[in-house]
């Protein structure tokens, strides 16, 4: 098997603020292989966006403390200089953000924003760069691309803007595309278009992707492997089937159980997760999830290590002290997986 494209080991990101230190990312490790789509799923504040942005060095700031290792093609990115990072951004790894309206500069034409990136990395003429930009816009499905390149972002619809952002990200043919909630701000039918585009890119160009999302439906649609994050830590990591059909962490059960699905009729009550996500300034001791977990016991006050508990060598790891057989019992609520049904 080819070596992984990207290797992240024990990534930690802390932000020093007036109210205290926020441990946004607390020991995240994962590999990304060629052509693979890795989904990082979690709710707001879990650290998934910070993780993604740190890969490109976008979180570097005076009040950020970044530790750990991000290795790309034998280069260590955490300690890389600004120069080195700039060479990686766009050329090797590119990023697409959540809200295409605010992520594009409103005063420059869309075509110009794409050529800006091309010109910053290569010596081609402006004319050639613009031709390339038009070709890219066409490739992502924007009709009348040549005319559209001369339009401003506000003249595009939401879906088209996101396509333009994807075109821009692809302009230097990166090996990895990081998509941070790429379809969240879009209408459902437009979301389907964007996801299909991303799937096509992955399939036809072998483009590896990291997909950040809170939507398990999107994960089910596009991902090969899944990382579930909670309060700065990975709580479960495995293939798509493993995480959906054999989840090992109570938080994952809770997420799966609380979902509504269009192919299932009305259930009496949704299996909810009680309480709320912790404040990042006052994280619980031990397992961050234990205050909300109905299955917690004494050992949970000790931070569970992220290891393969169920089957050695499977790559399916989790952060929960419970015995895997016990887990299979506990998570079954009738024919569904869930955490706990509220008492009537």
């Amino acid at each position, binding site marked *: 098997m080819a070596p992984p494209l990207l290797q992240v080991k024990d990534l930690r990101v802390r932000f020093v603020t007036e109210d205290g230190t926020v441990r946004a990312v607390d020991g995240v490790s994962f590999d990304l292989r060629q052509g693979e789509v890795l989904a990082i799923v979690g*709710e*707001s504040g879990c650290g998934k966006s910070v993780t993604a942005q740190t890969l490109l060095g976008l979180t570097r700031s005076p009040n950020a403390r970044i530790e750990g290792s991000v290795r790309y093609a034998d280069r260590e990115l955490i300690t890389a200089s600004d120069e080195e990072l700039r060479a990686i951004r766009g050329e090797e790894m590119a990023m697409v953000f959540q809200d295409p309206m605010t992520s594009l500069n409103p005063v420059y034409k869309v075509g110009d924003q794409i050529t800006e990136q091309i010109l910053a990395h290569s010596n081609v003429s402006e004319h050639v760069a613009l031709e390339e930009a038009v070709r890219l816009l066409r490739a992502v499905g924007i009709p009348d691309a040549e005319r559209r390149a001369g339009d401003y972002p506000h003249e595009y*619809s*939401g*879906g*088209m803007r996101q396509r333009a952002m994807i075109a821009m990200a692809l302009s230097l043919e990166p090996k990895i595309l990081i998509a941070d909630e790429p379809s969240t701000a879009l*209408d*459902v*039918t*437009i*979301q*389907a*278009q964007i*996801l*299909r585009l991303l799937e096509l890119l992955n399939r036809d160009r072998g483009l590896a992707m990291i997909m950040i999302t*809170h*939507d*398990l*439906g*999107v*994960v*089910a*649609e596009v991902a090969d492997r899944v990382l579930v994050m909670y309060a700065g830590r990975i709580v479960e990591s495995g293939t*798509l*089937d493993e995480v*959906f059909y054999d989840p090992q962490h109570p938080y994952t059960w*809770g*997420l*799966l*159980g*609380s*979902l*509504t*699905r*269009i*192919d*299932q*009729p*009305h*259930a009496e*009550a*949704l*299996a*909810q*997760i*009680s309480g*709320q*996500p912790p404040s990042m300034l006052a994280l619980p001791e031990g397992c961050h999830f234990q205050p909300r977990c109905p299955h917690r016991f004494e050992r949970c006050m000790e931070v569970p290590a992220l290891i393969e508990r169920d089957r050695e060598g499977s790559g399916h790891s989790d952060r929960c002290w419970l015995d895997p057989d016990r887990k299979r019992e506990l998570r079954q609520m009738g024919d569904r997986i869930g955490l706990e049904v*509220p008492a009537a």
Partner: protein
Amino acid sequence: MSAGTAPPEAPVVGPETIEGPSGDGVPLLEVSHLVKYFPIKSGLLIDREVGQVRAVDDVSLTLSAGETLGLVGESGCGKSTLCRTILQLLEPTSGSVRFEGRELSGRSRKELQPLRREMQMIFQDPFASLNPRKRVGQIVGDPLRLHGMASSSELRAQVQDLLERVGLSSEHYNRFPHEFSGGQRQRIGIARALALRPRMIIADEPVSALDVSIRAQIINLLAELQQEFSLTYVFVSHDLGVVRHVADRIAVMYVGKIVEIGPADAVCENPIHPYTLALLSAVPIPDPKENAAREPLVLEGDVPSPSDPPPACRFHTRCPAATEVCSEIEPPLVDYGDGHLAACHHPQNLDRQRIAAARIAPETPLEAGDAMPQPGSHRLTSE
């Protein structure tokens, strides 16, 4: 339809129309050919009306006591405007809204005041819909005060009681909104809506802005409260999964019109309108195997703007089953039995029997044609 004119006066859709599951025959809410247009003004010194945003373009529906009607659609479909117009927060351009038989449109503020008690709203953004300068007790208590429903001595007790019913603590009475999380703020909004013991609550995307793990809590809470307080809900959401779970009936809107309405299970399992089909197909199922087994139906193009809607059937520009008639004649809203209605010249998932037995519904828009779909209309080809 020429630009700039409102539709003609319409007969009110009466109680003999489609009822909800409670079936006691008297709808709680009857909306009849409701229209809301927003003028688009332009000009240097003097504003002229150069066009209209047809946010709600002839919508009729009824709501029975105790049921939950789900309202789904994408941006520009008019669902939020419809809610606000029903509540008379926006003045209707034309059409009628009757609550418990009493006409709401055209009433003065003073006349509406007592009726407002019966209909309340929960908003989408828990951060923007609470006044950050007021304490929680004030926010929830103000409606009671304004309507004179509680003396000042009782007020505090009532508010604290409400706070506990929605899962907060009575200690939260003196706190400010910024001290709460999104889910908790939404509970405050719910308590406020409940304060006046309304009969109907319109919830406009009540969980869209919340984290996934909190959504289930709020959805469950709303269901409990519905039982406890005998509430009738209109639940607006772009998330079909949530709507299927909460609603008894679902109405699908597209660019100002209702394209399909019917029992939730029927609409989700046997959708008639191609847009509903596309919408359902576009929602990913959080189950990899089920998801992969589905036939994808991905629409091309963008959602049209309500300021310049396509003529006749609004959906024909993106519809895989569209033919010439779709751009010429607006399809009538046809009743296919069991309370399932759809407005389409090429309805899907129907056998010849059902098509033959179909009748044009009284809720059909005034400008729609009366061409009924024929048996053997186009089937959608899957891609």
